[in-house]
């Protein structure tokens, strides 16, 4: 009953012996930077000649620098390292290119919106405001209420759909639901708004504007996002944990409630928060379903409500005379919205950190 097997005879080491004598020539680590500085200087000299602007200056510098780095490395260090440097340059340039709109957007919004980021903006509505002053208290509260309502509708439906898909559904039904959820993810937001409007128009007649309508329109957009993220997270829970629970004589539904969900609560929380961040800035469906108002309305079941995106839209498109004050308010509303979304992302990170299962090491 011996289980030993003859060990394979040790074969000769296959690692190549290091070549001696010819030590590869290497460029110093700072050389790419120096090359790029040089390229910048060259292009800078040519600036007056060709009448460049800042964007062209950066573009030419990057192209020239990348070419120079590649050729220099190829002549000194050989083709393999040259390709490495070239790809590094391309990757960094692509990263830089991706950062340009992001940084410029944040910069623009902060610089223009900071002017009106004052107490009055958070404390007063637009009632009786012509020209200077006024705020977005009603719009901020509207956004918070609508988002809370949307979450209240979407999270239970979305989570339960995800649980059904992962734990119960199989075969054709599962594929059908997954397909429909995917289709729902791609619905244009305006269609969601029109759906909610048409739905309520049946019962209340045309021209109806309600906060809860907006919440339903946003739910159409949010549910598929919640389903997809929750589904992925629930799939990550190891089957062994479910089996361990079944083996203790725990019914399936209680296994889901007490083992599967607690194990994945961090991921679920993160997914929900990111889904909220996704819908909080939606404009088009709210334009149709909520309209806009200058007064504060905190009742989602009674009449028009203001929200930040729609507020920004109207302040910008119908500023009044002179337009400067309304335009300022629009930028500040955009800034507040960005801060709100950023805050939600921070919350998502905190959730995933605090609720993640601890290993105790």
């Amino acid at each position, binding site marked *: 009953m011996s289980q030993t097997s003859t060990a394979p005879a040790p074969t000769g080491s296959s690692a190549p012996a290091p070549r001696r004598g010819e030590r590869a020539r290497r460029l110093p680590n700072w050389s790419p930077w120096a090359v790029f500085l040089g390229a910048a200087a060259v292009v800078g000299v040519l600036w007056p000649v060709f009448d460049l602007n800042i964007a062209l200056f950066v573009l030419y510098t990057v192209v020239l620098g990348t070419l120079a780095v590649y050729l220099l490395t190829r002549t000194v260090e050989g083709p393999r390292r040259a390709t490495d440097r070239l790809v590094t340059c391309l990757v960094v340039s692509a990263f830089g290119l991706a950062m340009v709109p992001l940084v410029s957007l944040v910069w623009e919004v902060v610089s223009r919106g900071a002017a009106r980021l004052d107490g009055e903006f958070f404390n007063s509505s637009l009632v009786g405001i012509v020209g200077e002053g006024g705020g977005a208290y009603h719009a901020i509260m509207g956004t918070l209420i609508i988002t809370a309502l949307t979450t209240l509708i979407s999270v239970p439906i979305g989570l339960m759909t995800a649980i059904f898909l992962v734990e119960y559904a*199989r075969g054709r039904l599962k594929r059908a639901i997954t397909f429909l959820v995917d289709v729902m993810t791609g619905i244009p937001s305006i269609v969601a708004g029109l759906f909610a409007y048409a739905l309520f128009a049946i019962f209340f007649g045309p021209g109806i504007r309600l906060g809860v309508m907006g919440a339903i329109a946003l739910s159409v957009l949010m549910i598929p996002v919640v389903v997809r993220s929750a589904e992925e997270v629930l799939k990550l829970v190891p089957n062994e944990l479910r089996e361990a629970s079944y083996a203790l004589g725990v019914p399936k539904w209680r296994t889901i409630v007490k083992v599967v969900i607690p194990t994945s609560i961090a991921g679920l929380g993160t997914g929900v928060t990111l889904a909220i961040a996704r819908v909080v800035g939606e404009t088009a469906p709210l334009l149709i379903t909520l309209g806009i108002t200058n007064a504060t309305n905190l009742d989602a079941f009674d009449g028009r409500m203001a929200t930040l995106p729609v507020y920004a839209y109207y302040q910008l498109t119908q500023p009044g005379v002179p337009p400067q004050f309304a335009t300022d308010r629009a930028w500040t509303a955009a800034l507040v919205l960005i801060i709100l979304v950023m805050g939600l992302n921070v919350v998502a990170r905190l959730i995933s950190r605090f609720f993640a299962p601890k290993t105790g090491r």
Partner: protein
Amino acid sequence: MAKRIDVSDLNIYYGNFLAVENVNVSIEPRSITALIGPSGCGKSTFLRSINRMHEVIPGGRVEGKIVMDGQDLYGADVDPVDVRRQIGMVFQRPNPFPTMSIYENVAAGIRLNNKRMRKSDLDDLVERSLRGANLWNEVKDRLNRPGAGLSGGQQQRLCIARAIAVEPDVLLMDEPASALDPISTLAIEDLMADLKERFTIVIVTHNMQQAARVSEQTGFFNLSGVGQPGRLIEFNPTEKIFSNPDQKATEDYISGRFG
């Protein structure tokens, strides 16, 4: 409360695929029964069919009978959840619940089933189970630490403690030591020797020395080819299997002349 298990004419299917064919066996109470055989021959499938865990996999079903002390486990009115309460299971890889502390892991069988129990009784149960799994002295000062922070061998004993805390009649072990080092394996084997005073134990193992060391009865599973159902070739007292088996196939497998 160890119980006897009688299996008669058992066929196990996954969908239309016959995985294990025609098993007839009697498993004695208060003893350890080992199941050996090559990979894919249906040992684990048979083990999981004893507490109806194989039904968790879509399409899993059986024909035939498994009777535990007169109670048909596959009777029409029998809830698989009740079966699993009486027949506990330990898995190949240690799988403590990552969100729970050591204490909560042991109490999981009670807590997850929403049984009411006084705090002091639950404390007693946890201590008794951990002592039963030879883990109490190592963890008594850190019962509130996460179970995932223990070493692999400790985690496996924690899983055993969790399984015996619900006081089952039978304990099924699916290669409980295959992911562990020799020291932890020895600890698990010693533990099994203690546990067989109280439970009927069925263990699947690839380690034949382990089967020879711990078990009273041994069953050898084999399959005649890929896609063929596995079958129980021989079931005899361990000494006989390892010294003078009835079947040629058993002898070939045990002596390493297999395949």
